């Protein structure tokens, strides 16, 4: 049987930084004139996110998120919006891949590449909780769709 997670793993999951973003989410709200608007739901748990992006050429100029969900999905969305502001779509694609690898436990948060993920590295504990990986990736999947919307526009 897959063993329940240890107390240490639980503590590693719910770091203060994550709980801080959950309690005081950054960039929560809506934009007046978004270039891309995406709604996404996790049908398994009912979590939902709305993501609005304003582009400046090829780069994300501003971004806001709305919706409700667990601490992991909310903190991940909050941190992601901070990280991607001012980044080009190519840079964001690379960050998304790094974050996904981190969530799937393929990479560790201490690597040089991973340092670019900044505060999102605090979510590395999620890798030990397979049932919660989708929570952490929800905002990123929404952003993926927003970028795709931009490309096809």
């Amino acid at each position: 049987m897959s063993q329940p997670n240890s107390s240490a793993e639980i503590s590693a999951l719910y770091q203060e930084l994550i709980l801080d973003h959950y309690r005081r989410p950054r960039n929560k709200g809506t934009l007046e004139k978004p270039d891309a608007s995406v709604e996404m739901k996790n049908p398994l748990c009912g979590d939902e996110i709305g993501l609005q992006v304003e582009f400046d050429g090829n780069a994300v100029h501003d971004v806001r998120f709305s919706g409700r969900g667990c601490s992991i999905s909310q903190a991940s969305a909050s941190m992601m919006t901070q990280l991607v502001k001012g980044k080009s779509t190519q840079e964001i694609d690379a960050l998304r891949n790094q974050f996904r690898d981190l969530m799937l436990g393929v990479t560790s948060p201490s690597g040089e590449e991973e340092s670019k993920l900044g505060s999102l590295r605090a979510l590395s504990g999620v890798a030990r909780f397979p049932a919660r990986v989708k929570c952490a990736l929800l905002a990123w999947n929404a952003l993926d769709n927003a970028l795709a919307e931009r490309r096809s526009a």
Partner: protein
Amino acid sequence: MNLRRDFPLLANNPGLHYLDSAATSQKPTVVLDALRDFYETANANPHRGAYSLSVRATECYHQARVRIAQFLGVRDSDCLIFTRGTTEGLNLVAASWGMANVASGDEIVVTALDHHANFVPWQVLALRKGAKFRVCELTPDGKIDLDFLGGMLNRKTRIVAFSHVSNALGTINPLVEIARMVREKTDAILVCDGAQSAPHFPVSFDSLNIDFYAFSGHKMLGPMGIGGLIGNRAMLEEMPPYQTGGDMIEFVHDERTTWNVLPHKFEAGTPNAANAVALAAAVEYLDKIGMDRVLEHERSLMSLAQERLTAIEGLHIYGPAPAERSGVVSFTMNDVHPHDLATILDGEGVCIRAGHHCAQPLMRRLDVPATARASFYVYNDESDIDALVAGIIKAREIFGYVPA
């Protein structure tokens, strides 16, 4: 009642507090033994062979049907069709009776309390037939609003589908009164989702004044993949087959085919005989305890859980008073999301369900994306509630609750 030792998974994991029996129950040794015993002593394809082993398999399968029918108060055991579970039973009625009898302009009634399995098949049927799909609203405490229901019923109503017990809240619906209302105001058939009632209290189909009742074996100590649909004989005989193939035929001519008698008409293909036999062992086990005692045991655990959980500041319990519920407690804890709660409880060995419980229409009406749900069964005891409460307190500490 100390039955934990009868359940290998629980006996082998002393620190495990399994509070998700509304999703699926654990299995006692007698059920696992029955499954193995069938394959070791009686395995052959039922209804097929002239040799004695096949006859033995057929007898085992038949006896299982009789035993389970007896457990659920069905005198005519041929009216119990084995299915994969409740979902397939309900889909059978929708696809067979529904497709043959519902017409454009007819009305189909479900309730906002229903599981997706007793909601979506009717919604799809209504869309296919151009019938009106109507959802009965609830009272604020999560019961079927009988006044609302009364106002919906009319001579156009063809189907009324409702759950005996809500899987999400534990609400025990007033089946007798609903049946009386429906009979009085409509010519509709009554379809009851019994997934959460058959495992938890005595059910006697013949005295229920309904037309169809579906149940799942895996929620009542049986294996996954076996359950049943009980139906009114006259209706089952009138209904076209649900699936076609082997076993369900009488004569297959080049141009057309005639159907086998009940129950075989609705059981195309090789039956799940081993699981039926194991489910018969499960109801034997439940009968030894006594279904009244099962109910009493769950009630006492639920009252205790209600009392202990209510004492936790910031915890909100959904649904009606404990006296009107089966062994389910659905709750939220202030700003700790149910998913986070379930993760932290899992770390303490406590298994609860967090999510929409396959009841999204209900969650919309409660205006929550998810709740946490603890559900009780015969093997639970006070220590499970102690662990649940301790885990919730721990979650609250992690999330920074400061007692006043």
